[in-house]
């Protein structure tokens, strides 16, 4: 009996009893064109790696966006650049988020995360292709923004392979990226 219990314990230890991570070819994502004042005419794949994490947000967001970016950043902060996945932030508020504002924001709080500002047309197509919902309400001089808070795991060309929920912590995010690398032999 005791032996059986030990075997069961070992089995649980080996398989970690964790949730199985399944990667899917979502009909989401795109190798979008970067149309900001610095990188115009270039595309996502000029910057991406074999595995990437993409987050859509805005720099004046107090809670949701810095929370997502902190988790993305913390998951890989101790890794060398070579081992880090591509980490990207795309603004959904191009009217207020200038190129300089995005880059100052990321450099100060989340070094290593690359930021993009897409021009209106490119932004509309990209958001649609990623399935990112955005609601911008302007009232009494205040701008309230509602948006999807997923972190998208993509391949080199921006095709979405996994949706990371906003509540997942940095340890879980790291595990998902490692599992993707293992599955794809990256």
């Amino acid at each position: 009996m005791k032996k059986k219990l030990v075997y069961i314990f070992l089995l649980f230890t080996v398989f970690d009893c964790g949730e199985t991570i399944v990667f899917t070819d979502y009909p989401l994502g795109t190798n979008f064109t970067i149309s900001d004042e610095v990188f115009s005419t270039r595309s996502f794949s000029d910057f991406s790696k074999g595995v990437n994490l993409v987050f859509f947000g805005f720099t004046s967001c107090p809670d949701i966006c810095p929370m997502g970016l902190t988790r993305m950043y913390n998951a890989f902060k101790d890794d060398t650049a070579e081992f880090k996945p591509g980490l990207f932030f795309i603004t959904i508020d191009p009217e207020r988020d200038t190129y300089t504002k995005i880059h100052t924001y990321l450099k100060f709080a989340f070094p290593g995360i690359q930021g993009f500002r897409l021009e209106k047309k490119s932004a509309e197509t990209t958001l649609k292709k990623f399935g990112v919902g955005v609601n911008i309400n302007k009232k009494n001089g205040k701008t309230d923004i509602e948006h999807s808070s997923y972190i998208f795991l993509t391949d080199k060309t921006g095709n979405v392979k996994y949706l990371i929920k906003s509540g997942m912590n940095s340890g879980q995010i790291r595990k998902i990226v490692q599992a993707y690398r293992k599955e794809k032999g990256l």
Partner: protein
Amino acid sequence: MFTLNKYTRAYAIMKLFKILIFSLFLVTGCAEKGIILQSASIRPTLKENGTSVLYFELKNNTGTDLRLLGITTLFTTKVELHETYEKEGLAGMRAIEPVVIKNGETVLFQPGAKHVMLSEINKDLVKGSEEELTFNFENLATKQTERHTFKVRVTIPAEL
């Protein structure tokens, strides 16, 4: 010579254990009075980026119910009690009414939930520094306003 047999030894150990448990009750019974601010943090932000956030746990041990009306600080006049919500797959943030904290209760302002938005900050909030914040309450028994000032560290919340 006096020796303890196994029964008296067990009795002595039990007695000691009871004294220990009783002391523990005494210690926890003498919990800190007043308003206790814990796990407080302000997110590091540059002045030019403008928006930061304050998280904390606030325990009301004052003996009376309180209402948190707002927070004031020297580095911004734009402070709002906020909450993060999800509606039809979209996440957003909105201002909330003053928060009632009953005597003995703890209210949590944490990532992804209630938080304090600090916008239009007038200086860089650098990691490791400390800022003074005044919490304004309404004492629900006396209807008087009470102010409590705390120093809060500029840092990333531990749970992230």
